[in-house]
């Protein structure tokens, strides 16, 4: 394994170096960086041209200039390790990149996470419900998403989702006819996902419709969109639901011990709701929140460990997940609690969903307010960005799970008398994940590429802009800085996928 990793590492590094060389040549040969100066009418034109030639070593041909650039990157030019040169104006690229990177990576990371989670869930459910109306619907949607131009969707999202929703927020009334139509539609959706005999389907339909109607009526009556909240009552309800749901999927409801442990974890989470909301959350920052999340996982794992009885690990896993989800809902409620203050603040003026930029300049407030601000700015670009990835992951996870479900060991597992849940979650799902891991890793580079377009439409000053400005002015250094990040990520994730694949599937290492 160690030699495999080393070999693979060396290979990736060489490929990356070659790719940067190729990229450098392509950019440097794509035009004349002195074009704007030749056309200028400045009196000191010649002087400016000479200065730029000296600044960017333009007297050296590109295939040699690369080595000056690479030497600078390795710290041979006296600027320290990682020096990426200056742009045409003489500003150091490192500073530009540092500014640009945060917003883009934030966008890409969140988009990737959302696309993975949604894509896996939808892909797996469609595979289990193959050839149902739900499956056909999702298949058609994923074909549609494959065919959508991102920039076109982005403009539509801006117009209808953002402006439409902001208009709606001015007077957030859910019309009664909307509730009457939406509730049965949601009910029908759930019925197509959850299978069963006609009687059971009817019950599913009834429950889903009623639940949707109740939630919508509650939202309407409590003026939810003006003042979104979850509140203690719904927290208790969701916590119990989470405990049952997580237990049902991870170990099955038949294991009473696990169910009780999950419920205890949920109860602890609910008990900590008020202290968190009205005391602890005022002292937190981003890092402390993450730390608190880790502590939550640890504590709930411990609860499961001590209550687990003979077979502790699965129970502890269940309680850890339950604890994490309950805590997430609580944190979500905390974010919602500042929503009203955020929308009514002078900077936002009641139109929260942003169409331009990556943050509201000059916004003051706690970490929670900034979180909401981030959400409002990330919402549209994320949707625009994940459409294609979501479609890809859905298709691949569906195909992969179907492939696995046809294997002989699944037949064996079934004939041993294992429950359907065990067969799907333990035997099929884990094996189906192996090929999906590769696809996802492969897709990350493309996601950053897609971010170039998304950023352009939404007016972000991110890496896409760095890339485009650099390219427009035949300025290799910013473009190369962009490529170092994008290509580096692509290489890194591919390497990661290969190692993961080798770790998960021992057959790979043999060949």
């Amino acid at each position: 394994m160690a030699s495999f990793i080393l070999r693979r590492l060396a290979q990736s590094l060489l490929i990356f170096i070659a790719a940067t060389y190729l990229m450098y040549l392509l950019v440097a040969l794509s035009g004349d960086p002195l074009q704007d100066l030749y056309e200028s009418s400045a009196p000191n034109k010649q002087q400016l041209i000479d200065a730029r030639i000296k600044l960017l070593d333009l007297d050296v041909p590109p295939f040699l200039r690369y080595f000056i650039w690479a030497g600078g990157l390795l710290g041979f030019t006296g600027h320290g390790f990682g020096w990426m040169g200056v742009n045409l104006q003489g500003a150091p690229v490192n500073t530009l990149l540092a500014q640009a990177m945060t917003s883009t990576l934030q966008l890409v990371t969140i988009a990737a996470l959302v696309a993975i989670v949604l894509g896996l869930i939808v892909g797996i459910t469609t595979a289990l419900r193959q050839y149902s109306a739900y499956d056909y619907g999702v298949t058609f949607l994923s074909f549609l998403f494959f065919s959508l131009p991102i920039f076109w969707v982005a403009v539509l999202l801006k117009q209808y989702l953002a402006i439409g929703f902001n208009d709606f927020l001015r007077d957030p009334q859910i019309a009664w006819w909307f509730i009457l139509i939406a509730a049965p539609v949601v009910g029908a959706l759930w019925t197509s996902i959850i299978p069963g005999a006609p009687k059971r389907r009817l019950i599913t339909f009834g429950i889903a419709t009623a639940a949707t109607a109740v939630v919508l009526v509650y939202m309407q009556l409590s003026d939810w969109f003006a003042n979104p909240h979850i509140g203690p009552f719904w927290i208790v309800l969701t916590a119990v639901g989470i405990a049952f749901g997580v237990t049902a999927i991870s170990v099955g409801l038949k294991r009473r011990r696990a169910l009780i442990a999950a419920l205890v974890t949920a109860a602890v989470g609910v008990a900590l709701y008020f202290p968190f909301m009205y005391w602890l959350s005022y002292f937190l920052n981003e890092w402390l929140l993450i730390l608190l999340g880790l502590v939550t996982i640890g504590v709930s794992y411990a609860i499961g460990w001590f209550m687990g009885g003979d077979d502790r690990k699965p129970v502890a896993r269940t309680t850890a997940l339950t604890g994490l989800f309950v805590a997430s809902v609580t944190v979500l409620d905390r974010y919602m609690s500042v929503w009203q203050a955020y929308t009514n603040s002078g900077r936002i003026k009641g139109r929260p969903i942003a169409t331009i930029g990556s943050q509201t300049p000059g916004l003051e407030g706690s970490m929670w307010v900034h979180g909401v601000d981030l959400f409002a700015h990330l919402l549209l670009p994320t949707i625009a960005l994940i459409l294609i990835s979501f479609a890809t992951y859905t298709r691949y996870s569906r195909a992969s799970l179907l492939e696995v479900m046809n294997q002989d060991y699944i037949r064996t597992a079934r004939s041993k008398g294992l429950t359907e849940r065990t067969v799907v979650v333990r035997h099929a799902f884990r094996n189906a994940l192996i090929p999906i891991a590769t696809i996802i890793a492969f897709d990350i580079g493309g996601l950053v590429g897609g971010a170039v377009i998304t950023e352009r439409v939404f007016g972000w000053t991110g890496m896409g802009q760095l890339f485009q400005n650099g390219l427009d002015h035949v300025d290799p250094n910013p473009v190369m800085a962009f490529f170092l990040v994008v290509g580096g990520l692509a290489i890194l994730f591919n390497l990661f996928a290969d190692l993961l694949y080798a770790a998960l599937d021992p057959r790979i290492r043999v060949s």
Partner: protein
Amino acid sequence: MAKTTPQAPATGDATDAQKDLALIEVAGLSQSQIVRRRFLRHRGALVSMALLAFIVLLSFTSVGTQIAGLRVGGWWMWTWDQLTPVVDGGRPTMSLIPFAIGEHPFGQDEVGRDIFALVMRGTQQSLMIMVIVGLLATVVGTVIGAVSGYYRGWRDSVLMRFTDIVITIPVIVVGAVLGRTYGIQGAPVLALILGLVLWTAMARLVRGEFLSLREREFVDAARVAGASDGRIIFRHILPNAVGVIIVNATLLMASAILLETALSFLGYGVQAPDTSLGKIINENQTAFATRPWLFWWPGLFIIAIALCVNFIGDGLRDAFDPRQRKMPTERALAKAAAASVSGGAAGQAPAAAEAEAEDPRLREGAILPNAIVPEEDRPLPSPEDEPEGDPR
């Protein structure tokens, strides 16, 4: 316990019937006939073919075309670079009730160009780029994949490392860099350049296909019979890999049209005075609030073309690769069961649950593994090439 979907046959003999059905349907047909039949059964693909043909015809006949300065006129009253007086703020004149097309069915832009003519010209450009990119990338990818998969050794190492290098650069990035350099020279040049970028996935797939096919018996037989490398590659292996190649060529075309429009949107694709669908959207995105028709039509045409190509690709995949094909309906199964009286009544196997997904034995059926072998080179039938009975 076991969840069954409504489509899942409930008894063991139903799965036997499935296999019989799979056999009946291909009995006595050549590979190409089987593929054509399956493709024609895919309704989405057929509708897409018709729609795509309509779009191609419409775009080329309506405004004519221009190739290297030579202009051929069409039946539409305006051309894409003709300025006409703006009527009614450029609003579209097309309406359904009462049905009317009018002078400017898709409306006009600020300077009075007819949007229908513009969109048609853009569609032409996008289609042309799509086809050129698809063909070029397929040829390059197939050659590279075939050489490295067939010869292996140092050729494989060199070519695959080169593929790795190219694949590291996201297509939109390398497309933008090359488009900025060559986009000014017109759409065909841009298409050629993009084709030289998009072949990587195809090369990897073809290589994988060749790696596995070259180990098959019919290749050994051909080699023993004294066939040259070229003959083995082109007459023996390539026809068996053609399914993978064609399917991925269509998917490649769909991504090519999206890439072209994205590049034109960013300003690195087709340049003025010519136009493309992405360019029209880019020029008019700020006008969305006031003149949404400038924005809707080019987008709808991009989606229509990409969706059609994707569906055709799906139909081709179904036709070439029975692994992902749809299970026969219960009615067809019952028919087949009635037609072929198989003695399966005894086996009430617990097949219901596993039939939830498609039956794996269908894959081993007589459909795919029978290699296409040229008549004169056909080797002696080996037992492995014959369809086996029930593996159980």
